[in-house]
């Protein structure tokens, strides 16, 4: 690439090389203090928010419950038409910190069981109650006979693990709510799958979403979806989940935890593949599912039928794209890798992932291991801006570094895949924008192709000076990545920050 030896380069090479350097400690993988991700409590709550008729009791001060309620429950009301749902706090105060919060927790459990009558009560610990050592498990076990609901403790203190640990913890734990399959239940659900690795709640009603596309494909093959775990699933669906023919991951990274647990405990097969961006990944996803459903023939017919429906437009787009270079914004590790996979396999493009934070090599270890095993080993470019401490210049810096690398590259031969809030001098394709959905499956493949072609078609138009100035004001001060919500929405799972006061805060979900 142009400028490969530039002094602002921290790393340029293949993912496998970066991965190895990270393992050997030869590249900094620590996340800067200016960069925060949701904590274990928040990510645990995101999964729990996706189970219907459930009440979570956050055992701690009100802020932990309130923040999550704003971010997840309010968003579900707004976007998906969910009814109002509570997240409860025991609202412990200084007295409880000193003397223990057992009384509050016992009382809360009994009250919640009476007034909400949920199927499940989850007791989620927060930092305060974790540190003071409230004996949550004992309380939960002792109170179980006195209530109607199922009840489970989730130890998800914010300090107790990195970002993804909350996801993994809950996914593993809810397996304990599941019933062991028998021949009757397996027979009943022999033509069913679970889609695993979902979170937060139901899909939007007014647009085509990725989950809807996957569901459509499964049903078109002649199978059924028992549950999306945990995207608006019920306790009943969870209980019978192990009896399905196969679990199919929605997100490889998140779905693997629950899928692996169910495989180990119940021998429920796991179809664990890359995010089904594009045809190649979708075919793999479908064929793996079909194998366990014993619907191989149906799958092949479906694949043929689906591809034929989009073939003309898709192949036309493919001609347009083959041989071109794709710069893929690396803020979201899994998405960027999945997009790189699609661009290489489906469109014959050369993909380079730009500014993939080395921290992701640890945070996303499961997925990276898998992808490397499949033979995907994309090029990675990391510049100093990615590792800079919270200066706003970090954002300008990465933008300028990108410009420098693009140099005199022809806009007709290079495409940037990333946020619309980046302003490189080449066509920008924002696959995360709400109008560019679905992204999965065949309809998604066509949608992506159309997005790319549109971006190229209008590449003659300079980027708006208005929007550029909104993102890069002349007199900007310092900021931290946590504040860069609009730009880095892809970097944070959908709406993991406060829903805030305005709808726009959830524009990426």
């Amino acid at each position: 690439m142009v400028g490969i030896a530039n002094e602002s380069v921290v790393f340029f090479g293949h993912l496998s090389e970066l991965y190895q350097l990270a393992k050997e400690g030869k590249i900094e993988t620590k996340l800067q203090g200016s960069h925060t991700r949701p904590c274990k409590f928040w990510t645990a709550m995101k999964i729990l928010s996706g189970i219907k008729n459930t009440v979570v009791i956050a055992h701690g001060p009100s802020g932990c419950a309130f923040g999550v309620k704003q971010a997840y429950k309010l968003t579900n009301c707004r976007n998906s038409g969910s009814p109002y749902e509570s997240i409860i706090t025991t609202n412990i105060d200084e007295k409880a910190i000193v003397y223990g919060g057992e009384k509050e927790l016992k009382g809360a459990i009994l009250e919640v069981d009476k007034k909400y009558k949920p199927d499940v009560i989850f007791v989620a610990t927060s930092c305060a109650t974790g540190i003071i050592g409230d004996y949550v498990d004992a309380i939960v076990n002792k109170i179980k006979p006195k209530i109607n609901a199922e009840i489970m403790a989730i130890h998800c203190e914010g300090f107790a693990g990195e970002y993804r640990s909350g996801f993994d913890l809950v996914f593993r734990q809810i397996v304990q709510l599941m019933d062991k399959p028998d021949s009757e239940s397996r027979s009943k659900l022999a033509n069913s799958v679970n889609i695993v690795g979902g979170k937060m709640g139901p899909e939007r009603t007014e647009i085509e979403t990725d989950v809807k596309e996957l569901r459509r494909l499964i049903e078109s093959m002649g199978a059924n979806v028992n549950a999306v775990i945990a995207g608006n699933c019920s306790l009943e669906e969870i209980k019978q989940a192990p009896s399905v023919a196969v679990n199919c991951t929605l997100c490889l990274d998140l779905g693997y935890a629950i899928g692996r647990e169910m495989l180990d405990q119940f021998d429920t097969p796991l179809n664990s593949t890359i995010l089904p961006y594009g045809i190649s990944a979708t075919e793999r996803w479908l064929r793996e599912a079909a194998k366990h459903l014993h619907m191989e023939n149906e799958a092949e017919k479906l694949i043929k039928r689906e591809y034929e429906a989009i073939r003309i437009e898709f192949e036309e787009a493919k001609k347009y794209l083959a041989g071109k270079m794709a710069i893929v914004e690396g803020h979201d590790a899994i998405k960027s890798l999945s997009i790189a996979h699609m661009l290489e396999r489906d469109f014959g493009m050369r993909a380079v992932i730009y500014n993939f934070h080395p921290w992701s090599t640890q945070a996303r270890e499961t997925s990276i291991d898998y992808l490397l095993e499949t033979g995907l080993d994309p090029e990675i470019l990391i510049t100093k801006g990615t590792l800079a401490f919270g200066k706003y210049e970090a954002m300008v810096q990465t933008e300028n570094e990108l410009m420098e690398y693009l140099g005199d590259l022809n806009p007709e031969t290079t495409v940037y895949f990333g946020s619309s809030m980046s302003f490189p001098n080449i066509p920008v394709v924002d696959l995360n924008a709400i109008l560019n959905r679905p992204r999965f499956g065949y309809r998604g493949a066509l949608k992506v192709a159309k997005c790319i072609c549109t971006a190229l078609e209008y590449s003659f138009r300079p980027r708006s000076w208005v929007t550029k100035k909104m993102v890069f004001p002349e007199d900007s001060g310092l900021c931290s990545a946590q504040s860069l919500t609009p730009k880095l929405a892809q970097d944070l799972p959908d709406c993991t920050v406060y829903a805030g006061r305005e709808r726009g805060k959830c524009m990426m979900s």
Partner: protein
Amino acid sequence: MYDELKFDNCNHSKDPMVGCALEGATGVLAGIKDISIVIHSPQGCSSTVSAAYDVHEIDFTKRKVACTRLFETDVVMGASSKLKNLIEEADSKFKTKAIFVVGTCAADIIGEDIEGLCRNIQPQINAKLIPLMAGGFRGNLYDGIELGLNALFPFIKKQKEKIPDSVNLIAPQANLNPTWWADLKWVRETLEKVGIKVQAVLPHDTSLEELDNAGLASANILLSHDAGYKFGVKMQEVHGIPLILSDIPLPIGLKNTARWLRAVGNYFGVEEKVEAIIKDGEYMAIDVLRRRGLMMIPRYRNCRVAVSADATMGIGLTRMLFEELEMIPELLLFRSPVSDSQLLLENELNDMGITPKVVFSADGYQIKQSLMESCVDAVFGSSWEYYLAEELGIKFVFDVFSPTNRQNYLNRAYFGYEGMLNFLENVANDWERALRSKHINWEEYS
């Protein structure tokens, strides 16, 4: 007087409508210019601080926050070294005049000596270091605002002399108007019209220099009925600045605005100027309503309503709805404790001769139960109440408070005369939308 409702099964479990002390405390700090915040906490608390910046709508390119991202080893072994390093880095990179070092639950409980550490490393740090323990368990959002305001005392210089006809404005952000800074602007502009100088706002977009000079004010005005009262009293004791206007509602609606303005006029001896503002404002508001809002008379009269808000908005709004719109406030739901304003509320209700049902520190469950058991036709609230009432089949829900689904590109006060019109415009639009058919049989027209 009011009829306070009681609820079963609500002693130990709350569905919170307000955040914790950390959000309140950092919501004060976010109002100060040229400072940065180092949060000594697990990384999730950073989202709470981000929400505090959202409240002040700080440009995302100007937020200066860093987090020690505490994990288990830090909780067990302590994290002083980590904190020290981060403070040094924040000082070097952010280059602000002050750094507030904020401890949250984890740091607070394990006893991190933030104060000692700040004192010890201050000589090698350019910024002034201010420690602040704000563990969420120290209270609710409003308690946190008091904590945050108290953290500002070191910046307020003691002054023997006072500038005549000058005021500080306290706690403008404890206000559920989605663009509450427009209320602050209205207050500022109105005071300036009558010759009263605003010395400092405590705080919104406030510089350290302004804080330094806050002690020169000859009076303090509290812009919230929910927070800041204790701070105001302490300012009176420490700096000799009296807290005025705390015994009347904030200027919401025509009568309350006139009362508030007249109280200002009486205190500062500018009665004539105030009367001119009142006359012009009332004329303007009523003239607009005569031309554009006449239909509200039959629509709103004797409409039984619930108000779900904070005390800052709710107390003043009750009179406006009852006397000026001729609605019947059946149910008042305060998400705040209303601890320092309960007497004000009682006096207001007695003066109006009504006895609505009231809930203090209302949580989501209590709001829903109250609405379910009441016979109201309409609800004034936020998007939360919008969804609750929708589920209960209440037809009219006015989404006027935070968090709102309403897109606001323009700042709209609720205080004052134009503020009343802003509020009523929102109400009128929600009313119209509520009656628009949702299920249209398109086949009949094809």
